[in-house]
């Protein structure tokens, strides 16, 4: 029993050490802009444009559910215009960023882990090195930058979509008018709301792509290793999203 705990502790420490090296190599590769600059646009398209359909699909239904949930919760207790308040605050500050990040942990993070993992086990990463490319500059940096830049853009569109579908649900399914819905939004609106959501989104994008790249480049042992890297990426990313979500709430909302 003690031996098992000891091995796991050593393994965890070694893992943190490898991650530290990974971060250092990635930071150093930032200087090689000639390499990562050439593939950044392609990665931004893959992370951003290709993720839009699933993100907007989730946002559309989330907006509808939020409006109905608000109505169900507040009926008879508070004015109906608060449906707009709840939809906007929740879409901008919580569900927009978090639900999108959880969905993209699978679509973006797992894809990166599988892609880089396959490149590892088929010696394509070694081939990059022998052709005088720095794998961190060519593979890691553009993906992490793309994730950090594109997640807030995706989430901004998710927020807008959720607000529109929430409004449509409110005026068609609930006894709420457009004026009441807009009053609910504007009465409690602060510019900080969407800034908070976008800051969170950037941090989610950074962490998801970083985990995907790290576990992808750490892949060993063929197809099974690629599968493990992919699964771990989704699990670790989901956990880190929730941890970061709490971190930003404690840091930015506590005195709000």
């Amino acid at each position, binding site marked *: 029993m003690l031996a098992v705990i000891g091995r796991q502790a050593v393994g965890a420490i070694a893992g943190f050490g490898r991650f530290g090296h990974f971060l250092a190599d990635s930071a150093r590769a930032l200087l090689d802009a000639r390499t990562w600059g050439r593939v950044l646009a392609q990665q931004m398209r893959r992370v951003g444009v290709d993720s839009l359909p699933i993100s907007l699909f989730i946002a559309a239904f989330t907006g509808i559910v939020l409006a109905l949930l608000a109505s169900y919760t507040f009926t008879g207790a508070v004015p109906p215009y608060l449906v707009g308040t709840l939809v906007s605050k929740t879409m901008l500050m919580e569900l927009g960023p978090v639900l999108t990040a959880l969905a993209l942990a699978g679509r973006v993070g797992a894809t990166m882990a599988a892609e880089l993992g396959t490149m590892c086990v088929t010696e*394509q990463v070694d081939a990059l090195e*022998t*052709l*005088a*490319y720095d794998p961190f500059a060519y593979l890691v940096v553009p993906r992490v930058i793309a994730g950090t830049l594109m997640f807030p853009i995706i989430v901004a569109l998710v927020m807008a979509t959720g607000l529109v579908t929430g409004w449509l649900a409110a005026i068609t399914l609930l006894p709420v008018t457009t004026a009441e819905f807009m009053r609910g939004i504007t009465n409690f609106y602060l510019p900080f709301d969407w800034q908070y959501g976008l800051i969170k989104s950037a941090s989610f994008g950074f962490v998801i792509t970083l985990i995907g790249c790290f576990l992808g*480049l750490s892949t*060993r042992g063929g197809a099974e290793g690629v599968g493990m890297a992919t699964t771990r990426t989704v699990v670790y990313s989901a956990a880190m999203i929730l941890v970061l979500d709490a971190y930003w709430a404690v840091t930015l909302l506590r005195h709000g």
Partner: protein
Amino acid sequence: MIEFRDLHKAFGPKRVLDGFSLTVNDGETMVIIGYSGTGKSVAIKHVVGLLEPDAGGVAVDGEVVSELDRPRLTALRARIGFVFQFAALFDSMSIYENVAFGLRRRTELSEDDIGARVAEALKLVDLAGTEQRMPAELSGGMRKRVGLARAIAIRPAYMLYDEPTTGLDPVTSAVIDRLMVRTREALGVTSIVITHDMRSAYAVGDRIAMLFQGRVRAVGTVNEIRTSADPVVRGFVEGQADARGTEDATPLSQAEEVAVEGAQG
């Protein structure tokens, strides 16, 4: 000149290289033979700095690879072409992009000149006209030839071949052998070929070294190895089924090979 100087490398408890020393002279083709999993690929990965030695080292033109900083290592790699066992083509790129990839990094050639160099390299490996195809559309032999074209396109001073004929039919293997000889004649490169295919070793090698238990068991010309009296060498080159039993020549188990491959990253 490439010098392996008392090279030691272990993966966990398994000592793969245990005092491996060998000198490859300018212009020659050195073939390294040995049982599967005995560290032949591990040895040549040290030449391009893909692995760090535990002790000893590899020197290329007098520069110790493990002591080079990244810019100097990159400069060294620009002089070395590496042909991987399974070609290691970038499967998201066309054949043209694969062959041009190293040129874009290592040279200041214009796109027209890169195109001409790609066409020349593909012609040298008898694959002219395949530029727009994807790696998945090619056979194993063709992929290896593209890997060879990618390596020679940069006009290296050294070529490292990691089991270039493994898994190929005899005719395709002979084609690859002929290409390796043609590459040497065309570019005058110094080469190291890792193989356990003796027909290929005899066809392309100037000298042959046998790696056994982590170090060189024998080294000599093709004829010297072919007629060696050493029972381990003779058993291997003649493919005697009981040769492994003569001494402890046990190669890595499958699980150990996986561990070694894992540690190589």
